[in-house]
């Protein structure tokens, strides 16, 4: 450590969807790294400590060979405009400003845009459209909630400060004694590091979440359940009745739900059942439901894509206007069905966690990658950009999991450009190429093309 340090107060951690904005960072300006991150959780500390500058890494490469950023932008634009079914994917670990550029590029090239939401809370997105969402901010939860239910998630390991900063232990306006003023329920098929926080732990049989939620809806409405409910779901009737009573009689209840619902059989039906339960409960008290979102700005991705296209993810522009069709225009499908013939992957690593068949097709097409580190996806990239890290090196806007926008305070400068700068360059060049293509096809007269965003 050198003496040339500075302190950044109220910095924001963008590792997970909690987007905690109370970080106090100590930055070693000579070494260009964060040496202390006060208030950060175990994941946040790793996020800040490990995003250092790899000075030797090339800022841009084509087929593994170092090139100038301008050459890489030209090749990326050529690759995307020549493709018949170009896809854009990722976006959850970058700023809203960069996401906006990505939508503009995809619109321009008549491509397909999707975000990591489709393999995260995409099913919940479908359920929101079908059932609706009784919602609130995490601030309301902190100040008012006296019954907190976590369903199908392990926040202690995925969102470690969710308990302490927002929902379980913090003292709020109407919860002055913190956890003593709340009842915490955890529903999960296995016992996890989150279990000790729960006053009531409910462990259904695997794959029976929908049945348990539907049974609770019936009990809330005063219906009788058959005695074999425990045999079917693994949860005794008395436990379900007790939870139903607690939900109806609390002052402000919240259901936080995770991937245990969206990634298992039933997917959007599971999320829909939970959202419907929250809606039902508003006949008796105030009850809200919130998905516990994953990557730092995945909620921003939903917001930006929705503002610009009308839909949150899985959007196709091939007809010149946006169409939404999960199962067709979501990225696992465009890859596994071999529809995509070029891909721009931004701040994401599908080659590491997509289904095998989708990865195989991804590796067979030209890929443009923007990432802060080498990944399984960038290893196979035709064009690879090394970009700076949002929230550490660059400012911008991110959305917390409860749709609250937060402005980032960077800690130190990076020699690498940010995602927005690269995407603006690609957008400009793509615009020129698409116009040239238009005129080359024999079109005449004035063409109305919007200026790059």
């Amino acid at each position, binding site marked *: 450590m050198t003496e040339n340090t500075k302190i950044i107060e109220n910095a924001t951690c963008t590792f997970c969807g909690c987007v905690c904005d109370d970080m106090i960072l100590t930055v070693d300006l000579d070494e260009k790294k964060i040496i202390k991150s006060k208030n950060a959780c175990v*994941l946040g500390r*790793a996020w800040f400590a490990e995003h250092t500058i790899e000075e030797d890494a090339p800022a841009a490469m084509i087929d593994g060979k170092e090139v100038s950023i301008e050459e890489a932008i030209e090749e990326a634009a050529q690759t995307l405009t020549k493709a018949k079914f170009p896809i854009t994917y990722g976006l959850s670990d970058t700023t809203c400003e960069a996401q906006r550029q990505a939508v503009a590029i995809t619109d321009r090239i008549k491509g397909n845009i999707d975000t990591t939401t489709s393999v995260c809370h995409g099913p919940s997105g479908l359920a929101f459209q079908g059932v609706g969402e009784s919602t609130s901010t995490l601030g309301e939860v902190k100040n008012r909630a006296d019954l907190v239910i976590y369903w199908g998630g392990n926040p202690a390991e995925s969102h470690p400060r969710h308990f302490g900063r927002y929902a379980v232990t913090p003292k709020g306006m109407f919860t002055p004694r913190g956890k003593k003023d709340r009842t915490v329920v955890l529903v999960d098929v296995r016992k996890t590091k989150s279990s000790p926080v729960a006053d009531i732990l409910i462990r259904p049989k695997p794959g029976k979440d929908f049945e348990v939620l539907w049974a609770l809806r019936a009990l809330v409405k005063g219906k009788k359940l058959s005695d074999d409910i425990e045999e079917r779901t693994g949860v005794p009737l008395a436990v379900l009745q007790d939870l139903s009573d607690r939900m109806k009689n609390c002052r402000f209840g919240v259901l936080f739900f995770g*991937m245990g619902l969206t990634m*298992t059989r039933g997917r959007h039906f599971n999320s829909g059942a939970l959202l419907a339960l929250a809606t039902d409960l508003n006949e008796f008290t105030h009850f809200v439901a919130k998905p516990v979102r994953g990557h730092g700005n995945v909620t921003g991705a939903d917001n930006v894509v929705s503002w610009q296209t009308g839909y949150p993810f*899985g959007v196709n522009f091939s007809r010149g206007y946006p169409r939404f069709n999960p199962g067709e225009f979501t990225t696992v499908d465009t890859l596994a069905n071999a529809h995509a013939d070029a891909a721009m992957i931004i701040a994401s690593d599908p080659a590491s*966690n997509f289904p095998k*068949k989708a990865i195989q097709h991804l590796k067979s097409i030209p890929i443009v990658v923007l990432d802060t*580190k080498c990944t*399984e996806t960038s290893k196979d990239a035709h064009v690879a950009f090394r970009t700076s890290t949002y929230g550490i090196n660059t400012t911008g806007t991110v959305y917390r999991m409860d749709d609250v926008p937060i402005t980032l305070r960077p800690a130190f400068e990076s020699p690498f450009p940010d995602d927005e700068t690269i995407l603006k360059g690609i957008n400009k060049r793509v615009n020129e190429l698409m116009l040239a293509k238009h005129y080359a096809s024999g079109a005449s007269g004035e063409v109305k093309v919007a200026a790059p965003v």
Partner: protein
Amino acid sequence: MSVKMILIPGRSSKQGTSLNVGKLKDEYKEVTSTLEMNTDEMAKMGLVDGDKVRLSNETGETTVTCIGKKPEDLPDGMVFIPYGPPSSELMASDTAGCGMPLSKHMEVDIEKIST
């Protein structure tokens, strides 16, 4: 002898911290290749901590290291792995029209690899 179980890939603290170090680094590879199984099931299969097992299903197969968890934490018939490249090998691509592949609750055959 192979045994059918339900595989649940998910986030763990170690997986979260190691991906910050780098997904191509050994630490991440090790974390995402470590399977948790309850100790009763391990005993039935003749496994001890650190043994290699082969997971397979209709989609693919992968080899991982097995470690024990208390039976009261992880029920019989269920195994857990921090998600990553090995779990992707077993994930089918069908999204049932919603964009999401079945990423948890995957039925797999588990077999001890003789050393």
